[in-house]
């Protein structure tokens, strides 16, 4: 159906088109200023009226970190693994990035329902803002990690650099995909909030963060279970991160860290899969988005 007159193209206010922003993630990046303000709002509001404030973002992971190192490292006895704290810390980076984005992202659209129901903003804005808030909180942890690596002696090679970048890219794209999908599904069924929490718990244990990957390889002898284990993008990101930050700090010749074969190739494939997942998640989001405003009362 065409209502566009012949003069439409030259009209100063553009053509007649359906109202509402349906440009998806591109629309979000076109409105970076609003995105920035939403992220800043979230950072301001999250720890309002708390004495320790933003410090909580570091206290909580620090306590978790110390627990793993003390209980698993010393009590259970993985202390023989060289630089175990680096092993855990690196793993936590990827896992925390994913779980924080997942949990905040899943709630993000429902939490902003007054805006979603009444104002015309690209709704992808909200899960993307959750991702950026998480990223902002992670920056100091990366600084701590890099500083630690330098102090103990960091023989970073090119493979390590590529692995580190792949790790970060995988965790960002995968978190974005799952955050987008879950934030949309959560408007229909709030079950997804609980689902997200359950996944967070599972991810903690199904990635080689607390235990080394070599244990998985030992137990599975490289069978399909190992392949399934490695199909998890977060596990892949953890291993790639350890290739960058953990194995490069070990100068003990008697120990050689175990990684899956073709680690970088696996990483590239995983990243490609995650990009496809982002695209699929965007399609799901767009389909459900047209009903957001009426579904959340």
């Amino acid at each position: 159906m065409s209502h566009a007159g012949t003069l439409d193209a030259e009209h100063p206010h553009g053509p007649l088109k359906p109202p509402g922003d349906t440009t998806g993630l591109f629309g979000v990046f076109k409105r970076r200023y609003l995105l920035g303000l939403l992220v800043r709002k979230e950072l301001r509001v999250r720890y309002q009226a708390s004495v320790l404030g933003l410090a909580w973002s570091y206290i909580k992971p620090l306590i978790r970190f110390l627990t793993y190192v003390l209980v698993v490292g010393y009590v259970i006895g993985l202390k023989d693994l060289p630089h175990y704290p680096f092993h855990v810390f690196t793993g936590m980076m990827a896992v925390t990035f994913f779980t924080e984005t997942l949990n905040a992202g899943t709630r993000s659209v429902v939490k902003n329902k007054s805006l979603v129901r009444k104002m015309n903003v690209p709704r992808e804005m909200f899960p993307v803002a959750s991702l950026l808030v998480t990223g902002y909180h992670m920056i100091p942890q990366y600084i701590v990690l890099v500083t630690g690596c330098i102090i103990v002696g960091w023989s970073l090679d090119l493979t390590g650099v590529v692995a580190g970048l792949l790790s970060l890219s995988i965790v960002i794209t995968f978190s974005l995909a799952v955050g987008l999908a879950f934030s949309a599904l959560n408007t229909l069924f709030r079950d997804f909030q609980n689902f997200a929490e359950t996944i967070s718990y599972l991810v903690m244990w199904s990635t080689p963060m607390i235990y080394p990957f070599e244990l998985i390889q030992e137990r599975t002898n490289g069978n399909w279970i190992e392949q399934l284990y490695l199909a998890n993008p977060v596990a892949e990101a953890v291993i790639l991160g350890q290739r960058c930050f953990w194995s490069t700090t070990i100068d003990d010749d008697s120990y050689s860290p175990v990684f899956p074969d073709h680690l970088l190739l696996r990483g590239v494939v995983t990243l490609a899969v995650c990009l496809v997942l982002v695209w699929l998640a965007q399609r799901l989001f767009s389909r459900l988005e047209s009903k957001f405003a009426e579904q959340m009362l």
Partner: protein
Amino acid sequence: MATSILLDQVSKRFVLRDALTLKRRLVAVAQRQPVTHSFLAVNDVSLTVEEGEAIGLMGLNGSGKSTLLKLISGVLRPDGGEVLTRGRIAGLIEVTAGFHKQLTGRENIYLNGAIMGMTEPEINRKFDEIVDFSGIERFLDQPVGSYSSGMFARLGFSVSVAADSEIFIIDEVLAVGDPPFKKKCIKRIQQIRDEGRTIFFVSHNTTQVKRICSRAVVLEAGKLGFDGSVPDAIHHLHYDDDGDDLDAEGGEI
């Protein structure tokens, strides 16, 4: 003159899901009861608004006025038909929806301006005008949660009227604020109209509609019941039947 808003056989159906949990759903299916109900909030509405027109949308409560506005503003998508608009849309519709109570008035001006699609330089340029219009400069750096409801609404208004747009939507909001502020708002709306922007005005207040609009449409149970001049629309609704005493308060301004 080009078309500004075009509604072509637009329908919007709302689905009410009254059994959301698995248990209730299973029970409903077992008892052969419907799991969902639906009703047509907007039913086959066709309408063309030319650029620069000021059109009043009237109708009783529940006739679908707000739904139609949300379809035009893009918050809701039609289930049938097509909604087309030209240019940016702003308006006095849910003016405080984007406010965050823990942020200050100043921060909320920026956040809301951005939500309405304003850029940072645009907000900077209009900041003084917004603050001036709202009359709350003394409390600008207080969290808006501490504002009185009147101050809150006024700040929301001030940001909304400052946004540049080609289409300006007004949803029954002129009921808030004290008389001097209402007067200021009406003046500002007339100014917006005189700038040649398209106005879509929802109101029960016949005096205000007469004052601002040159054309009126009436919705009746989701259908377009009348489209024509404002006095005829008022007559069609029988709003002119029984005295003006109810209307007197709004009529003064």
